[in-house]
């Protein structure tokens, strides 16, 4: 039972495609578990379809460009069509190799190997030996994930059963999705699929519940700041490592 969801506004930004790809990773991880939010995003995509059609016959036209008369900096439609057809014929000709870089591990294979995880995360960690776990607290380890962007730090966090994590506050936004196990803080219990968004200034002390080890995806757009003396000592090890 998923209790914690991204808010409507974040799902709308996701559907619009205006959020950072690392944040999109956390939202899509939640969607893997949550039918209700998947349906919500589908509805927003429908709104996208309506607004796309509306570009033609409403008074709203970006920069007053007349879309049907080809704007001067753009190519006539028939030319554009011919070049698209030339390209699809090229791609469909088996002698030509598609420019698209096929990723090393097909997502279907990845999700078969780690079937309990969202397929895109499975793809990122399909070779677990590449994960470098760093212990940042007695019961807490962090492994950095390379996701091909440089604005957010994306990590997996392991919290041992019964483990307690240092109190920390947030300079930036932190998006957490529980992947396995469960943890709780003063606001509630979080189990597989639950989504948390902590905003700048929030302070919380996650504390893994004793029943199971906990694995989370964390996306942070500024480094965590641990509070208290021990936190101060540990802080230098938890620096923003975008990638």
């Amino acid at each position, binding site marked *: 039972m998923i209790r914690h969801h991204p808010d409507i506004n974040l799902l709308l930004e996701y559907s619009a*495609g205006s959020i950072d790809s690392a944040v999109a990773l956390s939202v*899509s991880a939640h969607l893997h578990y949550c039918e209700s939010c998947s349906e919500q995003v589908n509805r927003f995509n429908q709104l*996208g*379809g309506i*607004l796309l059609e509306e570009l033609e016959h409403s008074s709203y036209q970006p920069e007053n*460009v007349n879309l049907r008369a080809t704007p001067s900096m753009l190519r006539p439609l028939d030319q554009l069509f011919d070049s698209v057809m030339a390209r699809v014929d090229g791609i469909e000709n088996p002698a030509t190799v598609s420019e698209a*870089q096929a990723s090393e591990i097909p997502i279907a294979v990845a999700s078969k190997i780690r079937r309990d995880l969202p397929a895109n995360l499975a793809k990122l960690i399909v070779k677990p030996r590449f994960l470098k776990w760093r212990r940042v607290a007695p019961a807490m380890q962090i492994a950095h994930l390379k996701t*091909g962007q440089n604005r957010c730090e994306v990590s997996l966090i392991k919290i041992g059963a019964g483990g307690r994590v240092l109190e920390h506050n947030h300079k930036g936004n932190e998006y957490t999705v529980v992947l396995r196990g469960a943890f709780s803080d003063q606001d509630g219990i979080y189990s597989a699929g639950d989504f948390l968004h902590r905003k700048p200034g929030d302070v919380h002390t996650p504390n893994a519940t004793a029943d199971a080890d906990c694995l989370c995806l964390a996306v942070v757009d500024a480094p965590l700041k641990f509070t208290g003396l021990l936190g101060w000592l540990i802080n230098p090890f938890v620096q923003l490592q975008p990638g």
Partner: protein
Amino acid sequence: MLASGNDLPKIKAKVTDRIDPPTSGSQNTLRDDTWSQTLLLIAQKDRKAFERFFNHYVPLIRGYCLSKPVPDQSSSLPDELAQEVMIKVWQKANTFDPKKASASTWVFTLARNCRIDLLRRSNRHIAQPLEIDDLWADEEEHTPVTHLQKARDKDLIAKAWQVLPKDQIQVIRKVFMEGKTHLEAAEEMDLPLGTVKSRVRLGLKKLQLIVANRSNEVDQ
């Protein structure tokens, strides 16, 4: 859904008879069905159908691209995007399921993903372990048909959109079509972030776009 299923052969016959699809905005329903049927023809590699589809959607995709400019956007980006999307349409038309999405929704998600991908490719030289479709997945593939809104619901949304208060239309356009975050929209309109967020929520609720069990969240 059953009704639209029964209508399929009839509409298909219309498409094949017609040289040009209807262009009047008042025929939204038929139009969308028409484009869905056109997609099914494209799936069979019908080039004439593809050209009709192309001529209708390319100007819209350009408009979509122009409505959300990025800094230093190249003036050819709308054309690049339109070409990428149309290549995808040609290649992926066989995965289109008219029971799950309308043609315009399908094109919207392709355009959104292609645009992000184009910007990502032009801006960065970092290895990309994930495809854009891994991040903005086609959830419809995994969602049972019974959970999806049907085409007729889409017409209701379109109608509700026409009568939505102006201030709500304005923020939803900014957030959705212009690709601004709520924070950016708030700064641009000189409004508190909370006001922008609640205005958007109110608008979405009036459009009946909020999934039933989430209405509490909207009222908070």
